[in-house]
């Protein structure tokens, strides 16, 4: 009968605290204690960690472990309130949810707990009048104030739970609490099935204490002729009732049994035709429910509590209590009707069957499910405050439909506080807080508004007897009601296809795209030369050095990888050959990045978008330019993407969360140890992601962050251990100053070099699509930030993958915005932004498609997908064209130069290498970087190497005027053309000075 099977209960493994005035061991324990303990037992059975905080009576221990969890006791009748608050405050960090059981005065738990801890305030009944009975005037006023106004202030919009529709109405009428009130009726233990033997003479049996407010006097007066009344129970009203019975001449028909043992009581109940109550109001008709469990129908006045528990015409009869006239007369009339009806054994058996069926619907596990649903709803409300579609209303809507239709729907889209029931092919849904129009909309959203669906406003009698709530997304399908209530979990095969095959395919495609003509497609770049130099020194045991000095510009992450590769494949002597050896390593890193990004997207967007984004990344010319060279971008971003993928894992327990977090931290740390400013796509998003309400996820992300810090600290410590801390620090300090923009030594913001805009315009033909994607990504980030504020629930599935991507976007764009505005801006800084842009554009597209609501959903979706499809196709076509061009027409001027040099430049010549690379790759010559005619002359230079593209853009040492002067005076002995260097020329300047010398 469980509402949710134990394996997938949403509160499994979480800490739920139940605050109640007393516990079952307390001498004054009563119904509320039973209620709380049974709920605790159910929660415990479902795998929640339960702590029951309560007052301590004399002789009770401070702490004990019970079958339903830990009981913590402290404080007396009144001081328990302070004790509970203090205990909650001290343990607030470990608490996931609180059931605050109010016995007149609530515990005011919101005062001690975290703002976002879900609380369900359970009110059994309103005590406003009880205060007046039990306390002197002023104290009663204080009690009333605490129960009413003070509770309203403290609890605000938090949710409440009541045991019956009547007591909910009472709460609304007497108290000003604002939160939604959900129903969590008491459970009913079913006795083992017995055979009933109704007495020959009509017999009414009442079990319960004989107290004045039960008004047995009315029942005695109403007793029809020829009917026996048996009263099992004792109490203050017994003497009065006995004398009344004698007075009415009923002493032979009214039998007072007093307190009886269970066997006698059961036998008595089994002999009953009927039970009756003349009470004028109860919170929950417990005695009626107990009789129903034994198969005995009931007659009672239609008063709060009782009219909820008796279903007239099914399990008993209700007597109108409101109209004028003698209550006893009316009760008597209905009793006669009831007994006449039950005189037919078939009818009586039918009533009995319905009574048992009705009572058995009230299980304690259903009660616990109702309360946890309230907690889950509160948790969601705190998370999604602006998302409220159905405003607070006590009304509800009942939907009935064929079970088959409900089986098709994704029930996770219902609210957790809604209720559902399936029986004999018929399904019923109770949409709480909804009117018929809302209900119709819900059905349309679920796609189950068929012709056999009936929607109507629920009456009080529709509100009870429910057992199951819609499943939560995290909880998985609910087996107990036999519905595929969650979209079918894809089979193992499909999961593997999504999570392994697709990224693997993407890896292979990206690798193939990168490896084609990798040696000739891009000219050797000066940074490549430095990086392989460092790696070679590492591999040969020379330490972290370059050209004889320490190299601390970048951390050693990628250099260590390269050194390992060099050790395995061996090293060529020439720097140029070494660069070409190292390039496939970067290509592999880039392809891993592609695959990881696809995997990240598969987690959060639909398949076609993920595939499209992956292909875009595989083919993007801007990304390709870095992935095909020995640059740090590809490996750094690959590590970061892997880290982000791990962050979308949704662990259920803190320990697994910490383990995943450490793994994510290791990936992110590797990224930072490859290139430091990748903190902006690793650590910065992680800091943003710490602001989650999910405790396990927070732990996971915090451990990831700690791991990153530890990894970097390890790097710093090893620098200290190697004794090279001070040069390292000097390098880092200047690096920081450059990133902050205090020093503009390199990049577009440096005065005197070409500006970003002129470079962008120059590159528009090759990287136009990439730039457009970055712009779109920036807009998508802004839009998603707004969307996350308005509709946070869209970001929650897949381990909060949406949030992970958004945090990544915010980190990347905040960094690039700062770099463009104030800091040092270099072209490679756009690399992480580029990758992030593709990811976030995909996520934005998904959100836009998913959140299309309103009248023209289909049209909007068509327009969106059509537009995205066309844009993607255009970009693909352009990218593929650029790729084909790049890979067919070589850009390898240095390789040509190196091939020519042994014959063209005599050994021992003096060469001025005005660009950056030649000085590292040329061998056997005297090298310098003289870039004006006088110094050429002074140093007796024989050859000058010039790259026109660099001279035009202001890089290297040669300026345009110098190139022009050389063109005028000296012959070009070698020229090679490429995209990177323009014309790489060698001028023979020997004759220039020889000729001039004589004049």
């Amino acid at each position, binding site marked *: 009968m469980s509402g949710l099977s134990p394996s997938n209960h949403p509160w499994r493994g979480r800490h739920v605290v139940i605050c109640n005035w007393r516990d079952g061991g307390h001498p004054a324990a009563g119904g509320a204690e039973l209620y709380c303990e049974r709920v605790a037992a159910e929660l415990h059975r479902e795998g929640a960690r339960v702590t029951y905080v309560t007052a301590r009576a004399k002789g009770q221990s401070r702490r004990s472990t019970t079958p339903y969890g830990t009981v913590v006791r402290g404080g007396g009748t009144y001081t328990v309130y302070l004790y509970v608050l203090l205990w909650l405050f001290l343990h607030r960090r470990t608490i996931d949810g609180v059931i605050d059981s109010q016995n007149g005065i609530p515990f005011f738990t919101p005062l001690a707990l975290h703002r976002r801890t879900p609380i369900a305030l359970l009110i059994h009944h309103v005590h406003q009048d009880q205060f007046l009975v039990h306390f002197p005037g002023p104290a009663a006023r204080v009690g009333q104030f605490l129960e009413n106004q003070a509770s309203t202030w403290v609890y605000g919009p938090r949710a409440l739970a009541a045991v019956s*529709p009547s007591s909910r109405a009472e*709460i*609304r009428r007497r108290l000003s609490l604002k939160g939604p009130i959900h129903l969590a009726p008491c459970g009913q233990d079913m006795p083992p099935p017995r055979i009933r033997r109704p007495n020959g003479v009509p017999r009414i049996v009442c079990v319960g204490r004989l107290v004045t407010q039960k008004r047995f006097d009315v029942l005695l007066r109403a007793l029809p002729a020829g009917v026996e009344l048996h009263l099992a129970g004792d109490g203050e009203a017994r003497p009065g009732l006995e004398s009344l019975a004698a007075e009415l001449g009923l002493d032979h028909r009214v039998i007072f049994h007093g307190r009886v043992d269970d066997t006698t009581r059961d036998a008595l109940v089994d002999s009953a035709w009927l039970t009756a109550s003349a009470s004028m109001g109860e919170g929950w008709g417990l005695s009626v429910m107990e009789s129903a469990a034994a198969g005995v129908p009931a007659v009672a006045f239609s008063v709060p509590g009782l009219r909820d528990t008796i279903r007239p015409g099914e399990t008993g009869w209700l007597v109108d209590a409101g109209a004028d006239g003698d209550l006893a007369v009316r009760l008597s009339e209905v009793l006669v009707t009831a007994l006449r009806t039950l005189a037919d054994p078939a009818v009586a058996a039918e009533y009995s069957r319905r009574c048992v069926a009705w009572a058995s619907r009230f299980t304690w596990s259903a009660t616990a499910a109702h309360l946890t649903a309230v907690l889950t709803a509160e948790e969601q409300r705190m998370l999604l405050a602006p998302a409220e579609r159905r405003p607070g*209303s006590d*009304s509800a809507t009942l939907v009935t439909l064929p079970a088959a239709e409900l089986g098709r729907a994704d029930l996770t889209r219902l609210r957790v506080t809604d209720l559902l029931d399936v029986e004999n092919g018929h399904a019923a849904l109770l949409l709480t807080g909804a*009117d*018929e*129009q809302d209900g119709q909309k819900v059905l349309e959203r679920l796609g189950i508004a068929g012709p056999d669906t009936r929607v109507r406003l629920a*009456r*009080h009698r529709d509100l009870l007897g429910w057992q199951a709530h819609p499943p939560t997304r995290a909880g998985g399908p609910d087996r107990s009601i036999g519905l595929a209530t969650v979209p079918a979990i894809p089979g193992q095969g499909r999961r593997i296809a999504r999570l392994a095959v697709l990224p693997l395919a993407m890896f292979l495609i990206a690798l193939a795209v990168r490896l084609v003509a990798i040696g000739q497609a891009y000219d050797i770049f000066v940074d490549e030369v430095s990086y392989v130099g460092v790696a070679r020194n590492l591999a040969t045991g020379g330490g972290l050095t370059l050209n004889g000095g320490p190299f601390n510009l970048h951390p050693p992450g990628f250099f260590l990888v390269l050194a390992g590769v060099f050790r395995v494949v061996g090293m060529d002597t020439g720097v140029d050959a070494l660069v070409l050896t190292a390039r496939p390593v970067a290509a592999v890193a880039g392809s891993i990045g592609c695959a990881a990004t696809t995997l990240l997207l598969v987690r959060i967007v639909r398949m076609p978008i993920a595939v499209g984004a992956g292909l875009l990344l595989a083919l993007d010319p801007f990304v390709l330019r870095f992935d095909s060279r020995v640059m740090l971008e590809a490996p750094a971003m690959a590590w970061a993407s892997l880290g982000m993928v791990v962050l979308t894992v949704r662990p259920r327990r803190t320990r697994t969360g910490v383990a995943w977090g450490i793994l994510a931290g290791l990936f992110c740390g590797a990224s930072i140890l490859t290139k430091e400013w990748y903190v902006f796509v690793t650590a910065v998003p992680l800091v943003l992601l710490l602001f989650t309400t999910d405790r396990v996820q927070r732990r996971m992300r915090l451990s990831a962050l700690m791991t990153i810090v530890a990894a970097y600290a390890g790097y710093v410590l090893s620098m200290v251990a190697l004794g090279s801390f001070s040069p390292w620090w000097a390098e880092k300090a200047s690096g920081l100053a450059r990133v902050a923009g205090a020093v503009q030594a390199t990049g577009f913001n440096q005065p005197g070099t070409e500006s970003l805009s002129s470079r962008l315009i120059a590159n528009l033909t090759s990287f136009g699509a990439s730039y457009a994607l970055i712009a779109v990504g920036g807009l998508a980030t802004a839009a998603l930030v707004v969307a996350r504020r308005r509709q946070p629930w869209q970001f929650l599935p897949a381990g909060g993958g949406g949030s992970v991507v958004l945090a990544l976007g915010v980190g990347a764009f905040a960094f690039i915005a700062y770099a463009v505005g104030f800091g040092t801006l270099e072209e490679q800084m756009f690399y992480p932004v580029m990758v992030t842009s593709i990811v976030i554009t995909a996520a934005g597209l998904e959100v836009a498609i998913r959140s299309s609501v309103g009248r023209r959903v289909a049209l909007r979706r068509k327009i969106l997908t059509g537009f995205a499809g066309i844009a993607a196709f255009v970009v693909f076509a352009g990218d593929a064209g650029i790729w084909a061009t790049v890979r067919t027409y070589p850009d390898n001027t240095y390789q040509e130069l190196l091939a020519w040099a042994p014959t063209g430049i005599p050994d021992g010549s003096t060469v001025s290498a005005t660009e950056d690379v030649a000085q590292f790759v040329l061998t056997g010559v005297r090298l310098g970087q003289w870039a004006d005619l006088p110094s050429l002359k002074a140093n007796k230079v024989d050859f000058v190497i010039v790259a026109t593209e660099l001279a035009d853009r202001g890089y290297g040492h040669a300026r345009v005027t110098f190139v022009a002067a050389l063109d005028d005076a000296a012959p070009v002995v070698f020229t090679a053309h490429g995209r990177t260097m323009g014309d790489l020329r060698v001028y023979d300047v020997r004759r220039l000075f020889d000729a001039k010398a004589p004049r």
Partner: protein
Amino acid sequence: MAGAIYRGRSAVPRRELELLIPAFNEERRLSDTLTALARHLLRSGINGTIRVIDNGSSDRTAEVVDRAAAAGLPVTITGCSRRGKGAAVTRGMLTSTARWVGFCDADLATPAEAIDDALDQLRAGQQVVIGSRRCEGAQLELRQPLVRRVGGTGFRMLTRRYSGPVADTQCGFKFFEATAARAVFADIRLAGFAFDLEVVARARSLGLSMVEIPVAWRDQEGSTFRPLADGRRVARELWRLHRDIPVPTRRELASAR
């Protein structure tokens, strides 16, 4: 304007009159009201029905309606989870198929006989009929307390620009011709205290023909006015009114005349 959206649905008005009663936790008073109204409809020979709009009640308001319907009264019920009397009335107005639609309070502050006067005006071709406690011929059966009277005067002064010649916008007794009702209620934004005022303002700016009829009014116990809390609420509603509702321009008013 927005009335056009509903043109298709207003083709076949079945009933002559539908009377809407917004109700929030009215199980105690509603039964008598329903009986009195139904009896009056029957006596006057009006082909009308009553619809209770349950505004998220927690008590047995719906059961009271069920009981009345079971007793043969022409009563139905519709839910409305949006809070506020205005939301409830709007829900009823936009889902009604009757030729004339009106609403009155669940406590029967206006006697049922006033329906006849309203219907006379509607039959004479008026599109909007507004029950008034202040126009000529009206009588307040129970004098209101001073605070309330002062508040009322202030409210009327502040809202003159919306109410125009209508002397009493706040009386919960208004009747509409079906198309006029849809035009007015299709765009209603406010649900609280200023809802009645918004109805009048929209009816004026749509240029509907409007008449005030005097009604008797019995102040019911239970309707209390707390100067501070309610004053703040009214101020907020007035601000929303000011923000959301265009003041009828002179030209619109001229064309309306």
